[in-house]
């Protein structure tokens, strides 16, 4: 029904004052929509572990206390969901993935990462996209503990890519020498997911 416009409908979005900060096709959203592809995993902090494994010289496993003791790092900026909402000027706190990788020492042949999660979700990234200050594991959002519906206890944060790459309920990162498409990447979504190049779907 192309062309039809619902008289007077504007939706919840903020007006376009931040239009220059928005990647193509995105709208600014005040809230923080919850998108769930399954039951929210319930993870006891006593049982929670964060692993870095695979093609690394020193596989790592941190408990919650150990993870909290790592050098803190935070992100302030914008996040973009492939469903077209962007949340501008938000903040997350946790640890830089660089810190985790430094401890684990990726082997030279490691080229890709799979983020694997409590509940079974996975997403894949080139190793480059989680190095050099581009990625975090976070457990705080806007100075409060990350709520379970947004991925708490901890999620991956890779804000320069569409937000489905910022895997919720992170259990660990596995380094590989090949690419291994994750949950949405194996169901039509783009393998890379750069919002500035509108890499939304397979074939884009």
């Amino acid at each position: 029904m192309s062309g039809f416009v619902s008289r007077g409908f504007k939706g919840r979005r903020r007006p376009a004052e931040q239009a220059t900060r928005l990647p193509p096709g995105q709208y600014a959203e005040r809230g923080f929509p919850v998108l769930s592809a399954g039951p929210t995993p319930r993870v006891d902090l006593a049982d929670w572990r964060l692993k870095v494994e695979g093609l690394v010289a020193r596989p790592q496993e941190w408990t919650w206390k150990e993870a909290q003791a790592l050098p803190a790092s935070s992100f302030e900026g914008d996040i973009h969901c492939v469903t077209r909402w962007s949340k501008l000027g938000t903040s997350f706190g946790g640890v830089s993935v660089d810190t985790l990788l430094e401890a684990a020492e990726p082997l030279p042949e490691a080229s890709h990462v799979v983020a694997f999660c409590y509940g079974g979700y996975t997403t894949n990234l080139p190793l480059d996209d989680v190095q050099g200050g581009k990625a975090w594991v976070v457990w705080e959002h806007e100075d409060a503990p990350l709520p379970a519906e947004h991925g708490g206890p901890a999620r991956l944060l890779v804000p320069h890519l569409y937000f489905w790459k910022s895997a919720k309920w992170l259990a660990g990162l596995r380094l590989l020498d090949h690419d291994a498409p994750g949950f949405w990447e194996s169901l039509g979504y783009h393998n890379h997911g750069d919002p500035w190049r509108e890499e939304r779907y397979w074939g884009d």
Partner: protein
Amino acid sequence: MTMDETDLRLDGNGVAGMLAEVFGFEMTVCWGCCAGCGASNQLGAMLVYAHGMGAVACCPACGQHLLRIARGEGRWWLDLRGLAWLQLDEQARMAG
């Protein structure tokens, strides 16, 4: 309001429109067999998690994924590996 997946969970009805568009059948009354546990149910009984990226529909008996569906511009992607079989009833075919 805090919410978790309990609040967001839907029935097969939650994807009735999407599946009708794709299959051309009223899918919630059609039967499917879980490739995991072998339980057969009408798709209306599936437990569904759906949002803008797509939907995952789970077996009401064992919780495994029956089907995954994603929607992009002008196309759909379907992963039906969780279904051992899907029965499409002629009576459920939709006009149009």
